[in-house]
């Protein structure tokens, strides 16, 4: 039992926090210092949904607009290629979105894949990871207005650019007390789409979790995103200049030692960085997790 608990401690925090009800794309993921051993894997099938008519523009001004809705269905996976290198994928994901005034646009989202390397083990494991966002999604995808003819709005399911996310993460288990904490920092190197260059971003956060009665994992994380420099004024669908602070609550009920049912609640706030260029939606998520530990 203790061994199982210890193993569980090593991977619960890697479940993705997908709260990105930005009209832009960009999954927001918790990170940890732990990596998989060779042949181990973890994956999660996840559905998230949210909607809002409160949009914070590029100047951080809150505006009431037509209601925007978005849902995502996707996979998050980790696989231990070696005892030190873990393969990560934040997809494939399928996204549907619309304004209350438009038809729904659905399509595959961009695909972030990458590797995580174990730098240090021990009581404070440290990892470094590089994830590349492959722009698989159609970068311009116009939804027709259902009320007014010949009127449309661009609702792409991807931002049309390659992103390179470099993440440094550290964790600590308070074993035998079933509690852990992780902290991470990600530099998001953004490129360009159709000659429009995007500003790089810093994403960082901390997460703490606790296991209750060997059956339920509860975690709370806070994270923020900041933009380097002054972004150009570009169409607001590509996440340029998007900033926020957010919290994520997660509960996972272990149905078996390997299989879990997960629910999440994600919400933006202005605690560290004010909300900029996003729809201020609370995002609810449901998922199934499965892991193989050796």
């Amino acid at each position, binding site marked *: 039992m203790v061994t199982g608990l210890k193993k569980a401690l090593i991977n619960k925090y890697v479940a993705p926090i997908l709260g990105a009800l930005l009209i832009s794309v960009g999954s927001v993921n918790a990170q940890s210092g732990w990596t998989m051993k060779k042949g181990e894997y973890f994956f999660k099938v996840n559905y998230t949904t949210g909607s809002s008519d409160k*949009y914070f*523009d590029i100047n951080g001004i809150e505006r009431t607009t*037509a209601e925007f809705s978005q849902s995502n269905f996707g996979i998050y996976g980790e696989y231990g290629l070696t005892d030190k290198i873990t393969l990560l994928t934040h997809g494939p994901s399928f996204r549907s979105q619309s304004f209350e*005034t*438009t038809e729904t646009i659905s399509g595959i989202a961009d695909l972030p894949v990458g590797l995580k390397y174990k730098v240090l083990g021990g009581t404070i494991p440290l990892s470094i990871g590089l994830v590349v966002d492959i722009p698989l999604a159609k970068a311009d995808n116009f939804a027709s*207005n259902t009320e*007014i003819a010949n*009127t449309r709005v*661009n609702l792409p399911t991807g931002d049309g650019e390659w992103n390179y996310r470099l993440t440094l993460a550290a964790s600590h288990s308070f074993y035998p007390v079933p509690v852990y904490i992780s902290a991470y920092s990600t530099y998001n190197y953004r490129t360009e789409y159709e000659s429009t260059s995007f500003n790089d971003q810093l994403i960082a956060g901390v997460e703490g979790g606790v296991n209750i009665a060997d059956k339920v994992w509860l975690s709370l994380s806070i994270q923020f995103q900041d933009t380097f420099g002054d972004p150009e004024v*570009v169409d607001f669908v590509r996440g340029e200049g998007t900033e926020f602070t957010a919290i994520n609550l997660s509960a996972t009920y272990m149905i078996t030692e390997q299989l879990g049912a997960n629910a999440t609640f994600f919400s933006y706030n202005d605690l560290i960085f004010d909300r900029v260029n996003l729809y201020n939606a609370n995002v609810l998520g449901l998922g199934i997790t499965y892991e193989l530990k050796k």
Partner: protein
Amino acid sequence: MKKLAVFFLALSVAFVGCSDDDSETITIDSSQPTGNLTVQQTGSFVAEGGTNSSGTVDIGTDTQGVQFLRLGSDFETAVATGTVAVYLSTSVVYTPDPMNGNPDLRLVGSVNENGEAFFKLEPTAESKFTHVILWCTSVGVQFGNAELN
């Protein structure tokens, strides 16, 4: 011999058909002004809604006396977001009142591209309209306004 005569006759008809004709077909696009526009009112866009809206807008009449609204060649707004509607407005703020026929607004047209565009104003614009407003219809956000002077 008869077949040869028919062939030459057909060939001659074809040549006649292809020859230059003094008459010229002129297509008149009623959505475009005829001749130069005599400007009556002009304004410059102020960006709103976190957009880059800018450029000039004019209201004037062409040589036929038809009134047009012209977005200048320097006109820009967030067209990558989608269709942007152009309204005449009695104020700086988009103020719909559909229950009463939107007395403070008049939809002029919409744009999907930056740059020069003309919109025929028929009937002519009432003097109560003091501003031109750029409105993202699907989202419901004002992208810019220009005061007419």
